């Protein structure tokens, strides 16, 4: 790929010796010979297979759990329920003070999404474990469920998550993350045109070719070694330590080579239960998602609903942008409170708009909890923003790139979240793309620069 060196040349130093070169990947030979070692490529004699009993209902109270038939099956070594979990409630982000803890490790009195884990079966083989899963009898009282983010916020909607008391994450007393910059109502009043549009995405799965999983080995000295494809070893270690209520030095995480992550291996769901199982059985335990589980039980990218209301002048300046954004967190927080804040920080896009208001809601519904995915908090926002920019450009009769150059942020511009713009390069990036695609730009737009104010 060509480097267009003309842009920002004055800001670049000399090329390095080791950086700036396409050094051969250190893992390529391992990959092409099949020698690269992923977590599951290890053998442990006596290893048990963990399969999970999962809720078939979107929302239900658990009246009783009967594991007696499952336990009788030859080859079943142990059955684990919520009673066995030392600290059965957690939030993945509590280590960075995101509270309240709102997710059970194993469901106790309620299930809040279809696929939620309830009982772990440990058996000598996968086949036996699966058979035993089918023999566990759970008595449910099915409850009304809510699936739409705006319906979930209406009074009288089924309450998804009692830990929050309502169907949204509370941001320091507010029902949403807020950004306020200038006065959007004034901006709309002054605008030549005002439009409001609605954008919607549905959940998207990471679908790495390697599914999420781990193998935990109890060591002779009482420690646990966990071979995992987690994207964050210490996240995993620390959360597991809190759930298991063991001294942290007892746990060791080994990993670092992952068959695709894309944000789908940061939830720390398999490791704590597998570690508990290893502790209780004294044997190595493997807990890996099947592809079906990876598809529907592992967290997806959140569906988002985004309303963007813009006030625009005939000369192309956007003077006000009001964004109402709903992140469908599913049944539990996971990383969504963080992702929703990130989504609000990304607004109004890389454009300088004098009046901006953002209300970003993190909403609970009865579906698989969503979580981080490549472009977390930004990907769907960019879809909405850039389709909106196209609509606005056509509304005022401007070329879509010219319209963006008119509004693009420049160094020194104030952003909606109160930071000054620096290192801007949107203008030049658009110029380079236009050049590549043969998209004609005016002389003025060709001369525009991120480093001087313009229009």
């Amino acid at each position, binding site marked *: 790929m060509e480097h267009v060196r003309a842009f920002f040349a004055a800001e670049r130093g000399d090329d390095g010796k080791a950086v700036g070169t396409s050094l051969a990947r250190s893992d390529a030979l391992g990959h092409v010979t099949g020698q690269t070692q992923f977590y599951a490529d290890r053998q442990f004699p006596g290893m048990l297979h963990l399969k999970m009993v999962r809720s078939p209902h979107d929302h239900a109270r658990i009246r009783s759990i009967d594991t007696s038939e499952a336990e009788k099956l030859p080859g079943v070594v142990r059955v684990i329920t919520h009673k066995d979990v030392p600290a059965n409630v957690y939030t993945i982000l509590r280590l960075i003070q995101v509270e309240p803890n709102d997710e059970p490790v194993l469901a106790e009195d309620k299930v809040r999404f279809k696929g939620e884990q309830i009982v772990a079966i440990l058996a000598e083989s996968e086949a036996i474990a699966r058979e035993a899963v089918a023999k566990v009898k759970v008595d449910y009282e099915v409850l009304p469920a809510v699936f739409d983010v705006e319906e979930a916020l209406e009074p009288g909607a089924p309450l998804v998550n009692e830990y929050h008391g309502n169907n949204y994450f509370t941001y320091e007393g507010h029902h949403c993350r807020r950004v306020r910059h200038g006065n959007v109502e004034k901006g709309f009043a002054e605008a030549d045109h005002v439009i409001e549009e609605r954008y919607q995405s549905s959940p*998207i799965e990471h679908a790495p070719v390697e599914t999420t999983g781990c193998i935990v080995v109890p060591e002779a000295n009482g420690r646990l070694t966990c071979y995992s494809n987690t994207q964050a070893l210490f996240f995993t270690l620390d959360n597991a330590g809190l759930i298991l209520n063991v001294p942290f030095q007892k746990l060791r995480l080994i990993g670092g080579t992952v068959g695709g992550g894309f944000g789908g291996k940061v939830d720390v769901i398999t490791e704590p239960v597998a570690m508990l199982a290893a502790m209780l059985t004294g044997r190595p335990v493997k807990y890996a998602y099947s592809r079906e589980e990876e598809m529907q039980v592992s967290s997806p990218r959140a569906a988002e609903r985004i309303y963007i209301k813009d006030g625009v002048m005939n000369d192309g300046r956007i003077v006000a942008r009001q964004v109402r954004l709903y992140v469908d967190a599913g049944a539990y927080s996971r990383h969504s409170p963080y992702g929703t804040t990130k989504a609000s920080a990304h607004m109004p896009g890389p454009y300088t708009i004098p009046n901006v208001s953002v209300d970003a809601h993190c909403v609970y519904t009865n579906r698989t909890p969503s979580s981080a995915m490549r472009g977390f908090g930004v990907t769907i926002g960019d879809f909405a923003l850039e389709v909106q920019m196209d609509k606005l450009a056509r509304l005022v009769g401007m070329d879509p790139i010219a319209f963006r150059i008119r509004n693009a942020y420049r160094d020194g511009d104030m952003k909606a979240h109160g930071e000054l713009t620096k290192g801007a390069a949107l203008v030049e*990036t658009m110029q380079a793309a236009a050049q590549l695609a043969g998209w004609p730009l005016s002389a003025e737009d060709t001369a525009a620069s991120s480093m001087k104010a313009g229009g």
Partner: protein
Amino acid sequence: MAKARGRGVAAVNYPTGMNLGGDPSQALVHATTTGNFVVSLSSTDLGQGLKTVMTQICAEAIGVPPEMVIIDTADTDTGPHCMGTFASRGTHRIGNAIIMAAKEARKVLMDVAADELEVSADDLETDGKGAIHVKGVPSRSIPVFEVALAAHFKHGKTVSGRGIFMQTRSFPDPETGKMVPATTYAHACTIAEVEVDTETGEVEVLSLKSAYEVGHALNPKMVEQQIVGGAWMGMSHALYETTEPYYPDRAHGPLDFNEYLMPGPGDVPAMEGVILERPSQDGPFGAKGVGEMTANSPIPAIANAIFDAVGIRVDSLPITPEKVLRGILAQAASPQPAE
């Protein structure tokens, strides 16, 4: 059968690192007795090539060739804390931690070399090929191999260093949202060309032409891997993927790759790209994170190209043939003026 072509554009930026900061990573660097440098991390390579780019960063920071660098990751017993690989933070946070550790190790290396050559450390430079020589006098040199041996066995010094990088955590104001999300942002602009079959609603992406501003491409081919792979994933998001095809109804959720649709090798568009570099003020050798951004600009570019082709807006993802066809049929039934 009619096919309509259209072109659309999207321009985006993307922050490097965990939103609001507070995501540290540490690195430890030590030289073996024979002058190889081991970088101890607890960081994860997801396939983006973290192990390779960290090799390059350490090699550059110490001044030795990459083959003298060994990356040791990941074991929480031996590697210091790393927040994790996500949020396009790897190269930036871990790279900076390695540079800090490498600088400390390099200082000891140069001090020992100065002692061995009987000059001042300020008069020396690394040649990037495995030797240290007096500036301007390349013949007065000593291999790093010898310096490491001397450090360990003669001088009793550890050629090692410690590093950490953290963007200070920012806390948003609850009323105004005033916050510092990130200190550095990359940019991308994609122009998509599509062809829409007006009888089936199927969209073929003919080409994606893009520019990416990445701060500094530390390994250009690996940046290209993110660009090509990311663009494919973006196209996949735009036109194919969902775990809930009837969202918010959960019916018919796919359970395998037959039902979870993604473009195959026969569906990949022609791709062209160029790279720009406006160095990051606080990135390792000016680099910015790029792993996530590359999936983002193609999505709205494709949506806008579809509108350009057939005058239909599909404001929900994925933009399936059914949605496009419904739009085309609705428009034929009651034509709306184009926007």
